[in-house]
């Protein structure tokens, strides 16, 4: 049997990996869970944001953590324009169309990145990347602890914004009853685009927090697409607490799966969770039926 200390370390590492999944998925919870926009380009947009962080560091020497406000603002603007200019306008409001259009966007983004940046993977070299914190038998990289805490904070902030603020109210209204929202004077397209922008802004934050420990290449978004959708579906559509819990559960599953089944087969857990949740409990752990 495995040593409990190894299991403990595995769980902690899984939690930290899960924190990253939460970061990537929290924007999707808003876009997919609340607005029901199937954003298949989520992974590719993360990849673009990661390149932005990389080039800010490489060309201007901006530390990824310092770049947070810049990248978040840039991502928001990009997301807003993308929705307003393309996705919202071209999809004619049909589910499948949005899925296909965002798939088309993902193909374009991935290959533009391949064309401009080549397929080589790029990393950022910062002094604190190697800093290790010891917790019991586990050795944890400091940047991952930071990203974990930031992920939880981000979920909290978004949850409060959605529940309490005027904007959150408008987003929920638009998501639930588009015509009604229009009738009471809400600019529906604007609110959709704002919400989409916020979702992409979350990706910007994720990119800044990821880059100290991750590499970026034109395909590095792929790995996150299914994970992000799994997180959202597992946590329950539109639930930010759910997204946090879902991401952490997936992180731990993957870590323990890797420990017990080996590196290759361990990856199977995420896809299996996704399939089982959709088949057996499509409302997720924290979701309420609609």
């Amino acid at each position, binding site marked *: 049997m495995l040593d409990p200390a190894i299991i403990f370390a595995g769980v902690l590492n899984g939690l930290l990996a899960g924190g990253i999944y939460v970061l990537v998925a929290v924007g999707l919870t808003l876009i997919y869970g609340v607005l029901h926009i*199937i954003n298949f380009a989520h992974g590719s947009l993360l990849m673009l944001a990661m390149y932005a962080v990389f080039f800010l560091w490489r060309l201007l020497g901006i530390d990824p953590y310092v770049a947070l406000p810049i990248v978040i603002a840039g991502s928001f603007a990009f997301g807003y324009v993308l929705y307003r200019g*393309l996705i919202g*306008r*071209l*999809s*004619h409001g049909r*589910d*499948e*169309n949005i*899925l*296909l*259009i965002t*798939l*088309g*966007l*993902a*193909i*374009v983004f*991935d*290959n*533009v990145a*391949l*064309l401009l940046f*080549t397929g080589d993977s790029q990393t950022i070299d910062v002094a604190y990347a190697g800093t290790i914190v010891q917790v019991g038998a586990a050795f944890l990289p400091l940047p991952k602890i930071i990203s974990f805490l930031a992920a939880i904070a981000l979920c909290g902030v978004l949850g409060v914004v959605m529940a309490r603020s005027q904007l959150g109210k408008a987003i929920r209204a638009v998501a639930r009853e588009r015509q009604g929202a229009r009738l009471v004077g809400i600019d529906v397209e604007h609110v959709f685009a704002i919400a989409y922008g916020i979702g992409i802004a979350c990706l910007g934050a994720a990119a800044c927090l990821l880059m100290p420990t991750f590499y970026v290449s034109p395909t590095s978004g*792929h790995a996150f697409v*299914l994970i992000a*959708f*799994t997180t959202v579906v597992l946590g329950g559509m539109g639930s930010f607490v759910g997204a946090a819990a879902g991401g952490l559960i997936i992180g731990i599953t993957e870590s323990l799966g890797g420990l017990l089944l*080996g590196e*290759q*087969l361990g*990856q*199977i857990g*995420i*896809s*299996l969770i*996704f*399939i089982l949740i*959709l*088949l*057996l409990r*499509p409302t997720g752990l924290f979701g309420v039926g609609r």
Partner: protein
Amino acid sequence: MSRRGLVFVAGGLVLAILYPWLVRAAGAAGLPVAPNYLINVGMLVCFTAFIGQSWNISGGFAGQMSFGHVVFFGTGAYGMAILQVTYGWNPWLAWPVAAALGAGVGWLIGALAFRAGLKGSYFALITLAVAEVFRILANSVPFTRGGLGLLIKADPGMANLQFRDPIWVYYLALLLCVAGLLIAWRLTRTRFGARLVAIRENEDAARALGIDVYAEKVKVLALSGAMGAAGGAFYVQKYLYVDPWIAFGVDKSVEMLLVSMVGGAGTIVGPLIGAGALTAINEITRMLASVVPALKNVQPLSLIVYGAMLILIVARLPDGLASLFGRRRGEAGRA
């Protein structure tokens, strides 16, 4: 079919059959063409059209869009390879069995997903996840030899379904392509096809008409799975090698969807047109890259063009390039 349509189809078929001999004659006459290269390109168009047609049957006609259609392709590819390498089967015998395996996988996915009531984007995402599961399994279980992949012994000969002359591979692909077109054409002529279209257009209304929606959807996914697997088996037989990424990589799923969507989902000739366009764009960028040194890295351009085409077609031309040809869609067409 009208008399004009019949002439058109017969003409196309004759041209497709003569094509390899025409390019060979052109090559022999001293024209600047590379006959074997062109035959190979023709083979690729036919093959891509066929696996696109596999997607089109379920995704276009029945409206059950899949993002993981490669699962059928890979099942057929591995089925074909394992039956030969591990069990020493003759490929002629292994081919239909591989297709049957694909039908089985299609039936299983359909039975699970459609019983759970998954549709639209949920169905798309679950197929994506199933393909991932298959890829990871192929990477880990012993009988696929993991990431090493499976190599089929090269031994050209009709009995082994391996050919030195690319013409025969071309004819095999052409046969698949024509079979795919015939299946799609049948769907526009049979009650089964009409029921599928009814389900695509309005599932609740179809159910109210007494259509067993669940059974029809499972059936069409099994049919589509058999076609995808037959395509995968052909691929393995041509390249004599398969590994988890070739068999279950997401790129191929996207390719199957793209050629069908761009050409015209739910139309008979859509996948063929899409495959022709995709292959042409691919080969042109490849040629540009090899001829002009400054454009050495423009390979990704073909997919950029294709992604942009997908967006434009979804937005502006929902019936795909096929609708540009001005020919009325078949009876199965969207109203």
